[in-house]
């Protein structure tokens, strides 16, 4: 028999996406070790960031025991094969960063070196033609990947959904997992006078909520970690200067839904275009240093192609993270922990990642061990830092000189860790290797090549095989991908054929 201590009382502050993701995960996976109470207020809105996601969310949904179809129906979700970037490296150019790979390595040499060699000899097609995910994305096709190790298993998928519906969906699910929900506003946070640990949240109603562990999902306010514990903030706005988003939902103008999120560069940032079942999500992420809020709202109203369904709503944020997301007995998850702008749809991933590490390092026998807290903070920092470098690359790797914003990001000094990665790519066409964290070789290659960062030299072995034969072999791959994509259903058709995934028409 296992000896179990009394359950740890976990209090989650905030009922947005991060809050309900945290509450559901802890209740589901740590069951008898915890009691989970979530306090939220209907008077406090949620940001609802993260309309677009990364493939990791599929594992999250599955782990919670949620049916994918029910989840898609409830959140008006569509499928996503990657992100289509327009006008980033240069106006008029575009590329897809796919959830998938480009070709295969041959004789120990990665595919892109052979592609660079053919490109030099003007024998190559665009690199996206050698990626099933890119080709399907551009053709508007979708079918779930297989797991047989063949061509049809060379990609993954995520969802595009209405993030304001995800929290409420998880709230319903949380009830079945035994999460207690309390409605109310926190007016006072009590701390232990000796340790400084948070002991109690006092609500407007006078109700007192005591806990052993507090998960701060209060959004940008960061009520517990940022305000009560004065957790230090590391500012990254010198590398990621966007600090506002003007969001504007609008109607669909076409029958089809693109199975990709679009990111379209603008004069002071970029705008997203996310097709959901019922509407198109749009938003202009910009830097207030270079553009006023009114100008941004006007710009997004002018840019969308559908009928606006609301007035533009401006969100404010800043790039960076807490120096430590876990301090004393408070763990910040989501925006209270840090913020990286949504260019690569990482917001929900970053919450999911923090929750995963929290569960792995969850206090034992009711005691927080500082070594576990340090380990959590080390892992969270590593994740944030790696995502940050990848995001900065999208802005820095440009030839655009048509606005102050692009002049700034093109000429700014980048983090040393990114400078080293770019140097290795420029000199030798190689990707600095890591296996932990987010965004591996294929992602870096997609952005480097997509934004016109060509290496000076590539692997000497790429010139060994006869170029005509390499061209033929690559042609075979391209044609196999093309015929596979031709046989795939359209994204909308696939959804229509899976009616249990469709939300009822409102």
């Amino acid at each position, binding site marked *: 028999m296992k000896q179990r201590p009394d359950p740890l009382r976990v209090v989650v502050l905030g009922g947005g996406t991060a809050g309900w993701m945290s509450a559901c995960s802890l209740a589901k996976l740590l069951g008898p070790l915890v009691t989970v109470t979530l306090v939220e207020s209907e008077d406090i809105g949620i940001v609802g960031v993260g309309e677009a996601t990364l493939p990791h969310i599929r594992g999250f949904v599955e782990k919670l025991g949620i049916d994918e179809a029910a989840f898609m129906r409830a959140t008006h979700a569509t499928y996503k094969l990657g992100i289509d970037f327009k006008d980033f490296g240069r106006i008029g150019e575009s590329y897809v960063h796919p959830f998938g790979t480009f070709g295969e390595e041959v004789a120990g040499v990665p595919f892109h070196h052979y592609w660079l060699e053919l490109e030099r000899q003007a024998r190559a097609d665009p690199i996206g033609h050698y990626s099933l995910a890119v080709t399907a994305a551009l053709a508007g096709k979708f079918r779930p990947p297989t797991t047989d190790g063949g061509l049809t298993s060379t990609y993954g998928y995520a969802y595009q959904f209405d993030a304001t519906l995800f929290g409420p969906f998880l709230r319903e699910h949380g009830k079945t997992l035994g999460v207690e929900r309390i409605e109310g506003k926190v007016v006072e946070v009590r701390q232990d006078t000796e340790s400084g640990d948070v002991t109690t949240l006092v609500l407007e109603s006078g109700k007192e909520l005591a806990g052993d562990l507090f998960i701060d999902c209060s959004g940008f306010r960061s009520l517990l970690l940022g305000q009560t514990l004065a957790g230090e903030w590391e500012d990254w706005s010198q590398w990621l200067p966007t600090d506002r988003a003007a969001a504007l939902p609008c109607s669909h103008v076409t029958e089809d839904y693109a199975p990709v999120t679009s990111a379209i560069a603008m004069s002071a940032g970029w705008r997203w275009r996310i097709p959901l079942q019922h509407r198109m999500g749009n938003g202009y992420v910009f830097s207030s240093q270079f553009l006023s809020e009114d100008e941004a709202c006007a710009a997004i109203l002018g840019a969308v192609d559908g009928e606006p369904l609301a007035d533009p709503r401006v969100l404010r944020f800043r790039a960076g993270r807490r120096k430590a997301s876990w301090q004393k007995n408070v763990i910040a998850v989501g925006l209270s922990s840090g913020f990286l702008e949504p260019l690569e749809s990482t917001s929900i991933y970053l919450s999911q990642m923090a929750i995963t590490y929290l569960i792995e390092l969850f206090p034992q026998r009711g005691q927080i061990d500082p070594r576990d807290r340090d380990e959590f903070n080390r892992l969270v920092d590593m994740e944030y830092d790696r995502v940050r470098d990848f995001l900065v690359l999208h802005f820095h790797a440009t030839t655009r000189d048509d606005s102050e914003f692009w002049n700034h990001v093109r000429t700014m000094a980048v983090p040393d860790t990114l400078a080293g990665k770019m140097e290795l790519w420029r000199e030798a066409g*190689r990707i600095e290797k890591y296996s932990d964290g987010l965004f591996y070789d294929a992602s870096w290659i997609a952005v480097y090549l997509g934004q016109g960062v060509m290496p000076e*030299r590539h692997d000497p*072995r790429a010139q060994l095989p006869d170029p005509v034969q390499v061209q033929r072999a690559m042609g075979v791959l391209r044609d196999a991908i093309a015929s596979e994509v031709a046989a795939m259903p359209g994204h909308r058709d696939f959804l229509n054929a899976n009616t249990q995934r469709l939300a009822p028409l409102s």
Partner: protein
Amino acid sequence: MSEPRELPRRIVVAGDGPLGVLTAIALRRALPRTEVVVLAIPPDPAAFAERFGTALPFTNRLHDRLGIEEENLVREAGASHRLIMRYFGGAGHDWQGAAGYGAAIDPAMKTAFAREWGGGPRNAGTGAPPRSLGEVLAAAGRFAPPSGETDSPLGEVDYALRWNVPAYRAHLIGIAQALGVHHERGTAKAVVPDGAGGLAALAIEGVGELSADLFVDCSGSGAALLSAMPEMQWIDWRAGLPTRGLAIAAPGPPMVALEDRASFTPLGWRWELAGRDGRQALLGVPAGASDEAIAAALGSEPDAIVAFAPGRAAAPWLGNVIALGSAAAELEPLGGIAQDLAHRQLALLLELLPGRSVDPAERAEFNRRSGLMADRAADWLAAHYAAPAPTAQFPDLTLSPELFRTLDQFTRRGRLPFFEDAPMLVQEFGALLQAVGVPSGQGPLAAADSTSEESAARAFEARANAAFHAAPLYGEWLTRSLAG
């Protein structure tokens, strides 16, 4: 527009031991238009990265890639399979535990079936149940390497090879010759700098100057080429590893077994390597050990005692000189880790293969990753000394921050942090810690879930049963393979 690097015209590999010849094969296969010259260097008794005929599962993959077939190693180089290392005395006199290989091993496994079929000798003090299929099969003396069919019950069993070193080297030389690798027997007298931080040539006695674009130093612990580079720096591991010498017993009679054994003695770990052409006992000895104590711990008078100082080159690639194996890192060969590390460094060189000229960023990336690999290999060895009995014996060893974190997380929570470029999988590291007797804690997921242990045990029982029945007696399999 990106240009391909110019192909190297000639590469010189200094050292014609197994590692030098293997490196030449790898380079020649990767660069068939490049002349590859292997230069003879007097054998180094402290070249632990190639002197003993065993490595770890990674080597099997490298061999495959280089067209060195396991079947031929069995036929021609006395190769045999090791499924587990069994450790004795790590947590007291009666302690024993086994560590297998691969991602499928589960350190938390406990089953009735496995206890019945495996678990080692019945007189063992712990009676710990087996934790991997390898352990079940090793105890039953049954195994045949899976031949690649996807649904084989033996498919998840990973293994290491042992071989006869002279026969292995001869086999490699045959392949190298067929590939057109040149062999230069003259003695290198001096290095000729290229004036740009690298080498232009080696001055060979009676031959003259042998120039090359790249020089690979496989010369053993003396690092004949790397040590000629003015920027050469050495990182000392002695604070974390107690061994200062290796006592080598005279080879014993042939022994076929699916496991090798390591025992903790009053001096350090004694390791016995089974082999079809004779078994080999080795003992890591600390500074100041007396001859009597060494003979007692080794179980016989040593044939030789080879002194060494654990550590690694701060940057194994300087200029156009790349050091592999014992020239890049000196560590005890316990369990095959030294040769495993050498082969990983070779694979890294293949991944980051330069052209005729060297790009500094690429060299820096090689040095970064090669350093991570070596440091984690040192942690793997140091973990052997982190068990209770060795800790009592050597209380003053310093743990690297990474190993400290691993031990802390493992003992309190049963968790193993991931480290980039670590040679061993986290599952393998966990299995080692269990086997040497480092106590394991339990993580919250396991604590919260009462059903998973039972169902995992049932699943393991079924897999073990299937593997047991699919595997022939190993001795019979060997006889058939050698006859066929």
